[in-house]
């Protein structure tokens, strides 16, 4: 079952903050976050593992709540380059072929 992302879309002004949530109905081992710009391949942002800590990448950070089976991505002081569609991918097994199930995506538009 696909994880559920919310919101489906968000419009920001440069410098504003946003939170994207990713919820799973199954126990999580890992959560990946990717950003895809129009016409391009998804680009890996970060991975959170069960028992791990909050991660950060420039002004983009993420948390992982094992009990709630969800992860949140935080866009802080957003920049124009943050525009794109963000996908979470959830992994449920610590196995060699750790396949991911992706959410439907959250479209982010940052305006000047």
């Amino acid at each position: 079952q696909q994880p559920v992302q919310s919101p489906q879309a968000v419009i920001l002004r440069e410098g504003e903050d946003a939170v994207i949530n990713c919820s799973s109905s199954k126990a999580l081992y890992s959560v990946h976050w990717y950003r895809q710009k129009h016409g391009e391949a998804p680009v890996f942002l970060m991975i959170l593992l069960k028992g791990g800590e909050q991660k950060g990448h420039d002004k983009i950070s993420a948390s992982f709540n094992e009990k709630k089976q969800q992860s949140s991505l935080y866009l802080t002081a957003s920049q124009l380059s943050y525009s794109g569609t963000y996908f979470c991918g959830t992994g449920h097994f610590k196995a060699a072929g750790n396949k991911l199930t992706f959410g439907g995506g959250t479209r982010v538009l940052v305006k000047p």
Partner: protein
Amino acid sequence: DVKVTQSSRYLVKRTGEKVFLECVQDMDHENMFWYRQDPGLGLRLIYFSYDVKMKEKGDIPEGYSVSREKKERFSLILESASTNQTSMYLCASQLMGGGNGYTFGSGTRLTVV
């Protein structure tokens, strides 16, 4: 610069044709994946492979098969293309281990007419 290369960016095929989508990675990654991407549905896993000649079904394998004869190459085969297989197809590779992200190719937009 590490790469996942998909052989075609755009492809138009006729209903009933056998279609081959090729993916090559130069990173010596063990794991490779095929996803299809449709608006509003995100990325859905078709097949994946964690070793040469090994393959496992993903969430939507019907109408597809795969081949991995060499570590660097993972092919997706549409046995008899249908219009509902019109989609963007993304290949990805991953270094084995739970802490590594995927590297995606640029995708192949397939239209079946």
